[in-house]
């Protein structure tokens, strides 16, 4: 038999006992549907996290802090070091995590680490309010990620870090609140920022809105360019004693944007030797991804278990059809059909059943998933702009097909080789 004849005959045979084929296809359908959906969930969430990483962090920036010596549960408290700076609560790491304050000398030391091109203290500015044209004053928090950030902008073109002008990018939630008609209308407008200094005096600083930023996974603070940050910081520390102005929670260090993962790791190692800890944005958000990947892996495992169960269904179906067609097999062998072709005939039938199951499973998953995903994006998940919770990637759908058809083929080997080995005369004498 020609290969095309094998395929058409196998397809024809699978439709001969329609109910049995339908039930087997149904079992595969469940597995394929689940697998397609869980894969889509993984792709959707990870893609979202990826865009978040690019929107939040420049790839050439890392956050450097000075951790207190690791005090594990078994260690006693660390001895007092009079030269160490004061401890500062930080929102990095588990609650209660403290870091040692960085001094200007530390910043210089970080600058000296091989591979680091520049280091700036991360100053925290706490403005009181933001206001536009007497439309009321609203609280404002400035995102600490200002340095080297690429922002996911809904409007505007973002700011120029080297510009001497005071520029600010506001989150979308400020558009209505401050009284702007649209996001685009807000761009180019001048807003007033109020900041109170150490002696209780309020300073007003004007800044130009250069962009409107989509909400992100890590907070909805505004972003300011270096000039504005410095102006706000200077205003806020007016009247402070010189000593306390040199305490920083962390520093932003820059390195070569083309650095490979190994090179970045080497920089981190050198920082760690010097008593600092460096974390890139990818590190911080990467943990999300490993959690997501872990969950998807477990879900996929369930789907694969369903598919293996379906595989036994295929074995059963094929064994029955080999049994039913014993005489037909004998006849074909008597007419000179080779065992290999008989094997191909039955395994093709199984692979076809697998194909049907995965085609229907993936098709229904895509149809249902796309609807569910866009309904969720409008409703429940609307706070996370750009998140398509189920994203169907062609490669992962192709791999579902390959996996299901592979399982079907494996399942077919037992019945098909049984059919292939049958002696023609035993099959013909079979009652």
């Amino acid at each position, binding site marked *: *038999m*020609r290969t095309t*004849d094998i395929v058409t*005959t196998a397809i024809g045979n699978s439709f*001969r006992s329609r109910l049995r084929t339908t039930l087997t296809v149904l079992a595969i359908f469940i597995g394929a549907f689940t697998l397609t959906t869980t894969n889509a969930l993984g792709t959707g969430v990870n893609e979202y996290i990826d865009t978040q990483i690019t929107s939040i962090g420049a790839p050439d920036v890392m956050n450097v802090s000075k951790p207190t010596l690791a005090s594990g549960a078994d260690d006693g408290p660390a001895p007092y070091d009079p030269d160490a700076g004061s401890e500062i609560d930080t929102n990095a790491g588990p609650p209660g995590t403290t870091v040692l304050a960085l001094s200007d000398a530390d910043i210089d030391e970080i600058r000296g680490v091989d591979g680091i091109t520049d280091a700036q203290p991360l100053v925290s500015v706490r403005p009181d309010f933001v206001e536009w044209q007497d439309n009321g004053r609203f609280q404002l928090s400035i995102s600490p990620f200002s340095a080297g950030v690429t922002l996911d902008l809904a409007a505007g073109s973002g700011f120029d870090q080297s510009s001497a002008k005071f520029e600010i990018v506001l989150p979308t939630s400020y558009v209505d609140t401050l009284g702007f008609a649209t996001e685009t209308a807000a761009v180019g407008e001048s807003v007033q920022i109020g900041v109170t200094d150490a002696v209780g005096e309020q300073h007003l600083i004007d800044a130009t809105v250069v962009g409107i930023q989509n909400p992100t996974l890590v907070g909805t603070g505004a972003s300011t360019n270096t000039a504005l940050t410095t102006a706000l910081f200077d205003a806020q520390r007016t009247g402070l004693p010189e000593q306390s102005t040199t305490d920083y929670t962390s520093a932003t260090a820059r390195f070569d944007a083309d650095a490979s993962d190994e090179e970045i790791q080497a920089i981190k190692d050198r920082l760690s030797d010097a008593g600092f800890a460096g974390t890139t944005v990818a590190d911080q958000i990467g943990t999300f991804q490993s959690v997501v990947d872990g969950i998807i892996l477990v879900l996929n495992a369930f789907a694969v278990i369903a598919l293996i169960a379906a595989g036994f269904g295929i074995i059963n179906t094929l064994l029955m059809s080999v049994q039913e067609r014993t*005489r*037909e097999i*004998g*006849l*074909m062998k*008597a*007419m*000179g*059909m*080779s065992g290999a*072709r008989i094997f191909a005939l039955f395994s093709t039938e199984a692979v076809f059943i697998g194909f049907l199951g995965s085609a229907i499973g993936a098709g229904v998953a895509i149809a249902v998933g796309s609807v569910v995903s866009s309904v969720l994006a409008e409703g429940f998940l609307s706070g996370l702009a750009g998140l398509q919770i189920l994203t169907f990637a062609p490669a992962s759908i192709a791999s579902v097909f390959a996996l299901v058809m592979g399982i079907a083929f494996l399942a077919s080997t037992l019945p098909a080789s049984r059919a292939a080995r049958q*002696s*023609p*005369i035993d099959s*013909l004498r079979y009652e």
Partner: protein
Amino acid sequence: MSSSVLTARNLSKHYGTGDARFDALRGIDLDIREGESVAIVGKSGSGKSTLMHILALLDSPSSGELEIVGQNAKALKGRALNTLRNATFGFVFQQFFLNSHATVLENVILPLKIARLGSRERKAKALETLALVELTEKASSKAMDLSGGQKQRVVIARALVGDPRIIFADEPTGNLDSATGAVIENLLFSLNRDRGITLVIVTHDDDLAARADRRIYLKDGRLVGEGDLKSQASPATTPNGATLA
């Protein structure tokens, strides 16, 4: 004088071992010449089907030598064996073995499909063969919707479609009434006469056996006599005058 297509020497076949051992064939010597029609006759259980299956290479003998179209049966394996089965032999089994859900045409096409013929060519050939057994108008009927005699003609068309040199027929008229049986008989013998196809027919029908060139009598797995029609006084009786194209 035509050459021998089938030569068997001291063929034996037994099933089982020890106490359960059963000798189905015991030392069969046989020569079948090209273009000959041979009837294998004997009571039920005498080993007729077993002998036919061995001669047709569907089964292997326990001992003895078999030569088919000049080739030693033991040496025939794999592809050579499959090609021989497909191109040289045509089978009519004791049961119809038709795929009842497939059409008549599809059933007849099967050997050509196995022979890897192109779909146009095989369809033309199958229709030609169906015309020969006068079933052209049933080509697209389902095999299960045919009468017994029609089914047997489909089976013969299937045996014939690959232009075989030898047709093995096991009780080709066994399931049919005598009138229908006669139609089948005429069909087979006309193929033998017109196309020179060697016929090996297993039967316990004396009338059918009488029409063959030669009869081989089997009893308990042994050859108990041969009759050569042409050397005998009484000519073949023709049960009725029905003939086929």
